[in-house]
């Protein structure tokens, strides 16, 4: 969560890029999505974080107009979305979870084909195709059939097609699954860049590190329900989030504990034979003061460890289960 995004969210006077209101979708007896609502402001990156089968793809399918919602509505740049709607789809770029490229066509042909369907043509289309090939690092491989691509190259092309027409809202459904760490980092970087250029992004993942790194706001979804929503810090505060600092030391731990309890950021100290457990607010800023105080009270520190609650702990707290099994 960056300060600017927070401001953006709250000061945004413009229309929201996406309004999702009370979405429900059932498959037979199974309710895949049960009452999901959220909004995305222009330029905002919103993360849907949830485990396998949580309903992320189903939600996105309704947002992108691939699937009819049983209840609720989706509004994209002020226009109601649905499978037969045309106008709102112009504002969307979809990067489906599963690869959606033609194996017998080259990268350039794939891009050109989808670009035409998006309404690009002529020199504008050619220029965008070249840009996206460059962006995805596929310029050298633009000509061969994509069935000869490596998995990572296919993924990059899959993403490139989604942003070809510079959509107002880019939807990425778990774009880094099955990608090596290097490509993964490249993907995350390009999402950050796009967001920096003002594109709104809806990003689903079950990797909490990705959600933390990319997203201005995060919706935690499980069993088709949005369990909680907010910035990373808001979510952590939601579960009464406080940080932990663990000191390993020789010396009079009891006396040091006494001195540390007097510090304002410190909520609680437990001393236990050469080890001190501190519960503090905002560990990164408090740690220096804590170390100074401990040393001053005669402790010889051999180790300092900071642990902060993350979205994983939030998820565990909300659902009683781990994000990934």
């Amino acid at each position, binding site marked *: 969560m960056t300060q600017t995004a927070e401001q953006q969210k709250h000061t945004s006077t413009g229309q929201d890029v996406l309004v999702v209101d009370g979405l429900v979708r059932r498959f037979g007896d199974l309710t895949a999505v049960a009452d999901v609502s959220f909004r995305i402001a222009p330029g905002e990156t919103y993360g849907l974080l949830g485990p396998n089968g949580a309903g992320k793809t189903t939600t996105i*399918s309704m947002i*992108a*107009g*691939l699937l009819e919602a049983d209840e609720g509505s989706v509004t994209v740049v002020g226009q109601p979305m649905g*499978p*037969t709607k*045309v*106008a709102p*789809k*112009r504002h*969307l770029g*979809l990067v*489906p979870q*599963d*690869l*959606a*490229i*033609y*194996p*017998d*066509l080259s990268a350039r*042909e794939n891009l050109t*084909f*989808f670009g*035409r*369907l*998006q*309404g690009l*043509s002529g020199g504008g289309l050619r220029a965008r195709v070249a840009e996206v090939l460059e962006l995805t690092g596929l310029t050298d491989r633009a000509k061969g*059939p994509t069935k000869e691509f490596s998995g990572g190259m296919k993924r990059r092309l899959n993403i490139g*097609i989604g942003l070809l027409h510079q959509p107002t809202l880019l939807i990425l459904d778990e774009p880094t699954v099955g990608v090596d760490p290097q490509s993964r980092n490249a993907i995350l970087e390009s999402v950050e860049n796009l967001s920096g250029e003002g594109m709104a992004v809806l990003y689903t993942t079950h990797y909490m590190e990705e959600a933390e790194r990319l997203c201005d706001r995060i919706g935690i979804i499980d069993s088709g329900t949005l369990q909680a929503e907010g910035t990373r810090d808001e979510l952590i505060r939601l579960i009464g989030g406080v940080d932990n600092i663990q000191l390993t030391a020789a010396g009079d731990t009891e006396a040091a504990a006494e001195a540390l309890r007097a510090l304002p950021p410190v909520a609680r100290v437990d001393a236990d034979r050469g080890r001190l457990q501190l519960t503090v607010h905002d560990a990164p800023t408090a740690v220096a003061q804590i170390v100074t105080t401990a040393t001053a009270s005669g402790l010889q520190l051999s180790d300092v460890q900071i642990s902060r609650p993350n979205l994983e702990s939030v998820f565990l707290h909300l659902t009683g289960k781990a994000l990934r099994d």
Partner: protein
Amino acid sequence: MGQLITLLRTDLVQRLRDKSVIIFAVIVPMALMGAMNLVMGDAMDMELETATVAVSAPEGDQLAAALVQSLPEIGLDVEVTETGAKDVQARAESGDARLALVIPDGFSAALMAGEPVEVTAIRGDGAGLESSVVLAVVQGFLDRAGASAVATAAGAALGLPPAQLGGLAQQVATGDSAITLVSGETSDEQLDPKGALVAGQAGLFLMFTVSFGVLGLLAERELGTLSRLRSMPMNPVLVVLSKVLSSFVLGVVATSILLTAGGLLFGVDFGSPVPVAALIVCAVIATTSLTFIVIKLAKTSEQASIIQTILAMVLGIAGGAFFPMSGGGLLGTILDLNPVAAMIRGLGITSGGGGLGDIVTPVLIMLGFAAVALLIARVVPDRGAMA
């Protein structure tokens, strides 16, 4: 419109890059035509045997002349030699003619008076099916002339046993022959066996060729590109439409190639290009319309392949792709309403010189078939690719 063209072009490019279309739509049927031609070649040639007929007719007898003239027009290859009564018998004995006919003096007068007329028929050595057909036509002519005519077979000179003679006489007399009387009109509409082979295989494989469109749609689903297409700013119907159009284009091109190449290889002339083109287009419309039903039913490309293969075999075989099929009553009507059969029949008409006006019936059958298929496709619940 621009989007539809974009979709169609990409569909066609992909179908062509994936060689299976070319193999299934053109190469396999051509190979099959060649193989079947080799296997059935002899049988075909036997059927094509020329009926050599020697006739003696009274000078200046109008009806006799008309009868003689009608013989070469019965649809078989008939070689008629007119000569004197004595020579006729000699020709039959020597085997120069397989059938000899002696039309008596006063033939016209007797017929018009309603008196019995005896036309003498002599079957020579090796007289086969074609001679029987000629005899039946003679009988038919006599019947049409309104006389209670009796034809007597006098083959004693050739050493035919009396029982057979009697049978032949009766057969000719009553017209109750073992073989079906082929009227001049119908035989004009029939393709020769090689033409039927080429047309039949083209019709059968058309069913397979058009199935590539539906398979393309299911492939899109399996590739995941269908989701992406449906997220594009266009009417989702365009996706299906493009698949159907690509089936149509492939069907027209493949059938045109098969009929042209098959015609050249086997020496078949299907007639003038415009009505033949009309038949091809209608046949492709009819078979393509079936794919709308398959789109609704098939969930996977395997299912689609199976459904299409069943349809192709049923319609292809019933339509006479391998051997001529015929039947009476309801069955006959059902067989007649088959688009493959209608196309073969239509090509028979065009090969006999028929123009656009003559192929109205097969054209209507094929378009009607398409209309019914589309209607069924509308009511079938969507369980397939687009569900």
